[in-house]
């Protein structure tokens, strides 16, 4: 199974070409947050998408919450990028992962009630999280389509891609449009801020002086289809999807479990029919919090031994885009394989000895990659790992 289309909305570039350029250049999406009122916070830097023009891709964006606008725009870009003229005759699935869904819309309603202001029917209509996938189907004009909004928090993008892989592999569908989307919201920022897990300046995963995440937003959608179908229609192939794994820590509400994360990586590698030594690059969950980075790197060493493959964190550029994070990271893996480079971990000064990975600091490098692993961890212990390979 192969990836034949990519759609991206991100703080470092929109569209596959711009996004790839941003990754290669080590661009930073960090800027002062403008999505909500940050009065009273000592610092408020995030990775917002600015200048987003949904009308470039969508017929009726005004009825959709921002995260669904991101998802539908990315999906439309991905379908065009794949050269799929119309999907009306194909059995199609749309799966969009998310952490907050339309949480930004819910917050505005909560705010209105607190202020004693009215709440309108148009406002509440945007709240259900189902819009993130249903909105895509509506914009693409699809009716007989399997839609899922996968709400497995910050690993949701990988969950959606994993289900897309299974849906195509089992023959349930011909084409899967899968990825993730989230819009900046006050709740996520405030929660991480309260936990002391928001960096005041920029996101620096694996660095000794890392101080946490930056919240971000965006979307990425991948088009998956069987290799023979892609070849038959002469499609451009970015990369192959080799397999995936998913499991649950069934433990602490927010702290990741090293043993369980390692088990998830092993599940994925085994599913792909590989051994750990065949993995050339890991795109880590790499949030930049103390707990995540140490636990994840420990799990990586448990699986790969003392000299693991290069392990990079694209969140250094994009911030933590929540449900979109592992989808944007997957898009980065796919572009790295297609173009032969490793995206850097930016803002890096000194690697934390407790992490001890080659995170490709600050500058991307050319590399002949065959297999790339995409890690995703979430609150609640929802882990998912997807493996991509160079196009066959």
């Amino acid at each position, binding site marked *: 199974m192969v990836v034949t289309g990519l759609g991206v909305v991100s703080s470092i570039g929109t569209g596959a070409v711009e996004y790839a350029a941003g990754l290669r250049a080590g661009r930073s999406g960090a800027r002062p947050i403008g999505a909500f009122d940050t*009065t009273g*916070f000592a610092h408020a830097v995030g990775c917002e998408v600015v200048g987003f023009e949904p009308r470039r891709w969508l017929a009726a964006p005004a009825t959709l919450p921002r995260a669904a606008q991101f998802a539908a725009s990315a999906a439309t870009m991905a379908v065009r990028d794949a050269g799929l003229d119309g999907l009306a005759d194909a059995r199609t699935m749309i799966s969009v992962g*998310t952490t*907050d*869904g*339309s*949480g930004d819309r*819910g*917050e505005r*309603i*909560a*705010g209105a*009630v*607190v202020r004693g202001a009215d*709440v309108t*029917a148009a*406002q*509440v*209509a945007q*709240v*259900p*999280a*189902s*819009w*993130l996938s*249903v909105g895509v189907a*509506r914009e693409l004009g699809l*009716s*007989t389509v*399997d*839609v899922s*909004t*996968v*709400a*497995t*928090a910050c690993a949701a993008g990988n969950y959606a891609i994993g*289900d897309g892989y*299974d849906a195509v592999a*089992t023959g*349930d569908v011909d084409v899967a449009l899968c990825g993730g989307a989230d819009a900046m919201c*006050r*709740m996520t920022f*405030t*929660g991480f*801020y*309260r936990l002391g897990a928001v960096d005041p300046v920029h996101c620096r995963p694996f660095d000794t002086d890392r101080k946490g995440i930056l919240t971000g937003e965006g979307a990425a959608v991948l088009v998956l289809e069987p290799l023979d179908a892609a070849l038959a229609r002469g499609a451009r192939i970015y990369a192959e999807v080799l397999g995936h*794994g*998913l*499991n*649950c*820590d*069934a433990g*602490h*509400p*927010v702290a990741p479990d090293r043993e*369980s994360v390692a088990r998830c990586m092993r599940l994925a590698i085994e599913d792909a029919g590989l051994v750990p030594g065949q993995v050339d690059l890991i795109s880590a969950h790499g949030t930049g919090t103390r707990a995540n980075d140490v636990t994840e790197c420990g799990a990586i060493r448990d699986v790969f031994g003392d000299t693991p493959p290069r392990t990079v964190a694209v969140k250094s550029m994009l911030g933590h885009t929540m449900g979109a994070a592992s989808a944007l990271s997957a898009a980065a893996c796919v572009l790295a394989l297609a173009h032969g480079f490793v995206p850097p971990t930016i803002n890096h000064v000194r690697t934390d000895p407790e992490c001890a990975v080659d995170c490709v600091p600050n500058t991307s490098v050319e590399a002949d990659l065959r297999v790339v692993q995409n890690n995703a961890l979430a*609150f*609640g*212990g*929802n882990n998912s790992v997807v493996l991509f390979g160079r196009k066959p």
Partner: protein
Amino acid sequence: MALEIAAWSATSPFGHGHDAFAAGVATGAPAPAAQVSDEWFPGPDTAHLVPDFDIQDLLGRKGTGVMDRTTALAVHTIGLLGEQDQRVRIDARTGVVLGTTSGSTLTQFTFTAHSLTRRKPYLVDPAQMPFALMNSAAARGASWHGLTGPNTTLAAGRLSAVAVLRYADRLLRTGRASGLFAGAAEEYSGPRALLERRAGNRARLGEGCAVLFVRAVPEGNRSAAATVVALDTRLAGDGEQRAALTASLRHALTGVAPEEVWGLAVSGVDGVESEAVREVLGMPVERVVEPSRLVGDTGAASGVFGLAALLALAERAGAARGRVAVATAVERDGMVGCVVVRLPGGPVGEGSGT
């Protein structure tokens, strides 16, 4: 499809567990309702609440201090199902797949209100944060009961039964899970009432959680509550939900003779679903159950409650043996869909849509 429902349980306005729900559905009379009012929706509103549902009494004090009701309903119901039924077998690949509308709206709104009204905007309770996320019910359900397999939350609203069964079926066919607690939960709260009323929903609201234990259809004989033979969803254009549901039903019921259909559960109260089924079958269905009239509009849980109601009635109805039951769903976002199950006790038919 290759999915069997081995067992089910529910926490509902009729009470706790399989038997309380089955008895309530059998009487056909609505569960008790109470007047409710809170700061988010002064109302007053009348709702069907789960009786005797004190979270700390039921689940203990550890980890429950700020637990939302949706999560507690799921944790409790998964526990009831695991204890009640020996057909529920758990190993390292046993997982959880739950449907939701948008998680616990009350937790999200409360968290936001704290940020907007307290002395500093960051003086929120960080312990609330995981419960504000939509995956809380499935994730806590797993940790409470040691379920380390796939753990997924699908935000499908009233289409949740169809969505979780379709997703669960794939996990079982690919061998990623050995068995799954598949269901949905919805809590009653002032914020939910506010959103539903402003959206024009005038139905009496309810709450609860229904969970099915599903596994791959085995070789050979084994007792199950039902086998899922087909499911289907469509996205309808504006004002075309009935037509879309009719098309969905025609597809899912391919190969099923009209007289084979014994039972129907509908998600709404407006008759659209019954009319669509009647149009497709050309005859009325013998037994129609409307969970929303019994336990209130339970949002994401409504479809799983519908399936549970059908299974509960079939357990007591000889006429249901070996026949087919259908649960339909309609959501405001335009999605429609249905689940078709074959009830136990007779020869398993070959006919199915997908």
